[in-house]
C-alpha cells in the first residue's frame, strides 16, 4: 500500500471499510503531517488531540456503513463548529466559540468524519488570495511566495499539501473553484440551495454556497453526497431528490452537448489558457461529447454586478458584529464610539472596503442606480444561462484568467484582484453549479484549471463530465515538500 497521505478520500474510505486501515492510523498520519506543515499557515485552530481521541473511539466500535467512516478532515473556518473557536479569519470573532454546529459540518460528522481543525481563509471569505486573513496569509505548497487563491485558501493549501484527505469550502464568487484551480485540486460549487447555509458565517447570502474540495472528482462526488441536504433552518434550502453522486458517477458522456461561450475569451488571456481550453474541448470530443459555440452576452457585466450585490449584502450581514453581544469589543465613551472603535479595530481593510461599497450602493439616491440595476443585470445573466441550457448540457470555460500569482502582487490593487474572479462570478450570480478540475500547468509549472458549469441541480452531469475529462487529462503534479519542518 502507498503512504496513507497519498490515498484519496475514496481510497481511504474503502481501506477503512475493508479494515486495512483504522481511523486512528489515518488520523494520526494527518495530525503528524499537519504539525510539520505550520509554514503554510493553513490552520487557525487545531483540534488534533480531540481528533485522535475521536478516531480511537471510532475504532472501538466502527460503524462501517457511514460514508466517511472515521475520516479526519480540516475545514474552512467559516463553518461554525460547536465548542470549537470559529473566527471567519477575523479579529472581530477572534474569541468566538459557537454553541452550535453548521448543518453542513453536522452532516459530515453524522457520516463519520472527524474534525482535524479549522482552516485559514480570507477574512469573512472576502478575497482571492488568502491575504486578507487576520491570522496572516496562507502560503501555497507549490511555492513559498505563491498565493493559494482565496477565499478558501487554507482549505486549498491544506488539501494540496496533503494535510487533510479532503476538505470543504464556501464559494461566493469563486472561493472554492479559484483556489482549487491555483493548487491543482478539484473544487465544486453546488447549485444555490443544495447545501444548507445554516451555521456558515454569512458573506453574501444570495451567493454563498458550501462545496467540496478534493483530490479527484470521485471524492468530490462522495463529499457532496454527504454535505448536501434539505434543511428547514435555511429558507433558501431547496427540497429536491438528491442523487447518490458517487454511486451514479459515470464516464459515459457520449452525445453530451458542451457549450463554449465566446465571451470568456477575454482580452489579455494568455496563450497557455487558450491552449488549455482547446485541449479541454478535444478531451471532451474524445469522450464523444459535442462542442457547440455559444454566447452569454451579458458576461462582461457579471463582475461589476457581483461587486455591487455581494458588498451590499455583506454590509448588512456584517452589521451584527458590533461588539455588543459576542466577539471582539473596544471600549468607547458611548454606544456610537464603541461601535466605531470596535469595528475599526475588528475588521481588516478589505472587509471595510466592501462594507463601504455595500453601504454606498444601498444608500438612498444610489439604490436605483446601483443595487436595483445590478439585480436586473443579474437576472439578464441568469437568463443568458437559461437560454444556453436550452441548447447545451454544460459549459466549459477556464477557471481563472491566470495561474496563481505571487504574494503581495495584487494585494494593493483591488480591481486587479477582483478580475481574478471573472470566470467564476457569473456562476454564483446565476446560482448554478460549477466545478474546477486541474487541467494542466503553465510555463512556470503552476497548475491551471478548467471549469464545467451545469444546469441547476445537475451536479451529477458536471461531475460525470469532469470525471471523464479527469481520465483524459491525467493530471500529474508532484510537489517538492519544501515546507515540511521535521
Amino acid at each position, binding site marked *: 500500500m502507498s503512504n496513507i497521505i497519498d490515498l484519496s478520500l475514496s481510497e481511504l474510505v474503502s481501506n477503512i471499510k475493508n479494515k486495512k486501515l483504522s481511523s486512528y492510523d489515518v488520523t494520526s498520519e494527518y495530525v503528524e503531517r499537519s504539525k510539520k506543515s505550520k509554514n503554510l499557515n493553513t490552520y487557525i485552530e487545531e483540534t488534533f488531540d480531540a481528533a485522535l481521541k475521536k478516531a480511537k473511539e471510532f475504532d472501538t466500535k466502527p460503524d462501517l456503513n457511514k460514508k466517511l467512516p472515521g475520516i479526519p478532515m480540516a475545514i474552512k473556518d467559516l463553518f461554525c463548529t460547536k465548542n470549537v473557536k470559529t473566527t471567519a479569519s477575523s479579529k472581530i470573532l477572534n474569541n468566538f466559540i459557537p454553541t452550535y454546529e453548521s448543518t453542513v459540518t453536522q452532516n459530515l460528522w453524522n457520516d463519520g468524519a472527524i474534525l482535524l481543525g479549522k482552516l485559514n481563509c480570507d477574512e469573512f471569505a472576502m478575497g482571492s488570495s488568502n491575504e486578507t486573513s487576520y491570522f496572516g496569509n496562507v502560503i501555497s505548497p507549490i511555492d513559498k511566495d505563491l498565493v493559494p487563491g482565496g477565499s478558501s485558501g487554507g482549505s486549498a493549501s491544506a488539501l494540496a499539501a496533503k494535510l487533510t484527505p479532503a476538505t470543504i469550502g464556501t464559494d461566493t464568487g469563486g472561493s472554492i473553484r479559484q483556489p482549487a484551480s491555483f493548487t491543482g485540486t478539484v473544487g465544486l460549487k453546488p447549485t444555490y440551495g443544495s447545501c444548507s447555509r*445554516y451555521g456558515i458565517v*454569512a458573506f453574501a447570502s444570495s451567493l454563498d454556497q458550501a462545496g467540496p474540495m478534493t483530490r479527484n472528482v470521485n471524492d468530490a462526488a462522495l463529499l457532496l453526497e454527504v454535505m448536501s441536504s434539505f434543511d428547514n433552518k435555511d*429558507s433558501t434550502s431547496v427540497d429536491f431528490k438528491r442523487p447518490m453522486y458517487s454511486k451514479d458517477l459515470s464516464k459515459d458522456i457520449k452525445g453530451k452537448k458542451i457549450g463554449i461561450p465566446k465571451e470568456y475569451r477575454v482580452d489579455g488571456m494568455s496563450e497557455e489558457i487558450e491552449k488549455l481550453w482547446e485541449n479541454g474541448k478535444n478531451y471532451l470530443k474524445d469522450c464523444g461529447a459535442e462542442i457547440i459555440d455559444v454566447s452569454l452576452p451579458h458576461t462582461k457585466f457579471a463582475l461589476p454586478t457581483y461587486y455591487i450585490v455581494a458588498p451590499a449584502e455583506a454590509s*448588512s450581514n*456584517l*452589521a451584527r458584529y458590533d461588539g455588543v453581544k459576542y466577539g471582539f469589543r473596544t471600549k468607547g465613551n458611548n454606544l456610537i464610539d464603541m461601535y466605531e472603535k470596535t469595528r475599526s479595530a475588528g475588521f481588516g481593510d478589505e472587509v471595510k472596503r466592501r462594507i463601504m461599497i455595500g453601504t454606498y450602493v444601498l444608500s438612498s439616491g444610489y439604490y436605483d442606480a446601483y443595487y436595483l440595476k445590478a439585480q436586473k443585470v443579474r437576472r439578464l445573466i441568469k437568463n443568458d444561462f437559461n437560454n444556453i441550457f436550452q441548447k447545451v448540457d454544460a459549459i466549459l470555460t477556464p477557471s481563472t484568467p491566470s495561474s496563481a500569482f505571487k504574494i503581495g502582487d495584487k494585494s494593493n490593487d483591488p480591481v486587479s484582484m477582483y478580475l481574478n474572479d471573472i470566470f467564476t462570478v457569473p456562476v454564483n450570480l446565476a446560482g448554478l453549479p460549477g466545478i474546477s478540475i486541474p487541467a494542466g500547468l503553465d510555463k512556470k509549472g503552476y497548475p491551471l484549471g478548467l471549469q464545467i458549469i451545469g444546469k441547476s441541480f445537475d451536479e451529477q452531469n458536471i461531475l460525470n463530465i469532469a470525471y471523464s475529462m479527469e481520465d483524459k487529462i491525467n493530471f500529474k503534479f508532484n510537489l517538492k515538500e519544501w515546507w515540511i519542518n521535521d
Partner: protein
Amino acid sequence: MTKDYLIERNGKKYEVVIGLEVHAQVLSESKLFSTSPTKFGSEPNTQVSLVDAAFPGMLPVINEFCIKQAIKTGIGLNAKINNKSIFDRKNYFYADLPQGYQISQYKDPIVGEGTVVLDLASGSKTIGIERLHLEQDAGKSIHDIDPKNTLVDLNRSGVALMEIVSKPDLRSPEEVNVYIKKLRSIMRYLGTCDGNMQEGSLRADVNVSVRKQGEDKYGTRCEIKNVNSIKFMQMAIEHEANRQVDILEEGGKIDQETRLFDTKKNETRSMRSKEDAHDYRYFPDPDLLPLEFNDEYVEIIKKEIPELPDQKKSRFIEKFNLSPYEANILVSDLDISKYFEAVIENSDVKLSSNWITGELFALLNEKNLEITESPISAKNLSNLINLIKDGTISGKIAKTVFEMMAEEDKNPIEIVKEKGLKQQSDPKELEKLIEKVINDNQDKVKEYKSGKEKLFGFFVGQAMKVSGGKANPQLVNDILKKKLK
C-alpha cells in the same frame, strides 16, 4: 352633529390632520422568524434564541402562524391581501437590534388598502387604511438599572409586529381614541392582537399636521414616535397641533421632523430633523424568499374569521331591536358581546341590555374589573332578569339582590327564596295591606279626595314600606286607585 375639532387663533380656524402608524404585536406563541416564546414579563434574556441574538450563521425562518394572523387582520380591515410580499432589511445600528437590521416589509407589504368604520357621536366615518406589514420588534435597552451601563433585554427581539398605517383621515383626538379602540376591538375579535397597551402590545407613531380650515393641501407633518396609551396620544396631538399653529401664526414654517412626547411635561420635543433622518438602506432580505400564497390559502383563512364588531352591531340592531348606541356599547368588546349573548339566551333582550350597560358596568367600573372577571356570571344575571320579568321581584328588590350577588356569585332564585324577597302579588293580601294604610292615614285621604292628588305617591310609598318593599308596585297602584276613588 357635534362641533368639528378646530384650533382657533387670532380669528383663524385650523384643522388638525392625523395619520397613525399602529404597531400591534401579533398574538402568537413564538416569534416571527424563530421558535422562541413571546410570553410577556419573563426574566430578561430568557426568551432568546441564537437567531434572535443574531449569532453568526443564524438564519430567519418564517413563522407561518404569524403570516395567517396578518392575513386575518387584513381581512378584518376589509383590505386587499397581497399574494406576493417581500421581507426587506431596514438597516440601522442600535444596541437592542442584534442583527444590525430589522426585518420588515417595505415596498411590498402583505396587506394593502382597507377601511375601518368609526362610530362617532356625529355619525359614522370611514378611515382609510394604507397598508399593513409584518416586521420584527427590537429588544429593550434599559438605562436606569446600572449607573454606568445600558443593559439590553432581547426577550422582545424578533417578536412579530403588524404595522397598520392609516391614511391621514383622522381629524381630532377623539377620532383617534375611537379609531384605536375600534382597531383593537377588531383585532381582539380576530384573536390576532391582545391590544394590551400596558404591556406594549399596541403602540403608535402619530403623524400630525395642521392647515387652515377649508384648505386642500396638507401641511408639513411631524411624527411623534412610539406613544403607548390613548390618553398620551390625545395629549400629544393636542400639544403638537397647538405648537404647529403657534409657529404658523408667528409667520414660521413647520419643519418635517420626528418628535418625542414627554408624558411628564406634556409636550413634544424634537428627536431628529429630516436632514438627520436615518438612511435605512432597505433591500430585500436575501435570507428569505418572497412570501407567496394563492387565493385559496386566503379563502381558507376567511372561513375562520368570526363575526366582527360591525356585523355583530347590525345583527343586534336588526334582530334585537337595540338602538345603535346600545349595540355599539355591547359589541365594542368581544367579551362584553359574549356576555350579553349568554345572558339573552334565556332572558329579555331589552332588560338584559339595560342591566349590563347599567348596573353591571357600574359594578365592574367600581371594582376595576374586566367583564371576564365579572363577579356575577351571565347565567345568574339571566336568572335575575327573569325574576324581574315574571314579576317574582320588583326592579327595586332586584337591585338589592344584585348587590348580594356581587358579594357572592349566587343564584338569585335562591337568594330571593332565602331572604323571602318574593314580590307580594296576591290581590287579597295587598287589599288588606292597603286598607290598613288608608285607615291609618284618614287625614291624608281627606286631603287627597279634596284634590291634592300629589298625595297618591305617599300612599304607594306607605304600602311599599309596610310590605317591606315586596309589594308588587303595579298592583299596589291599581288597588289604591280603586280604593281612593
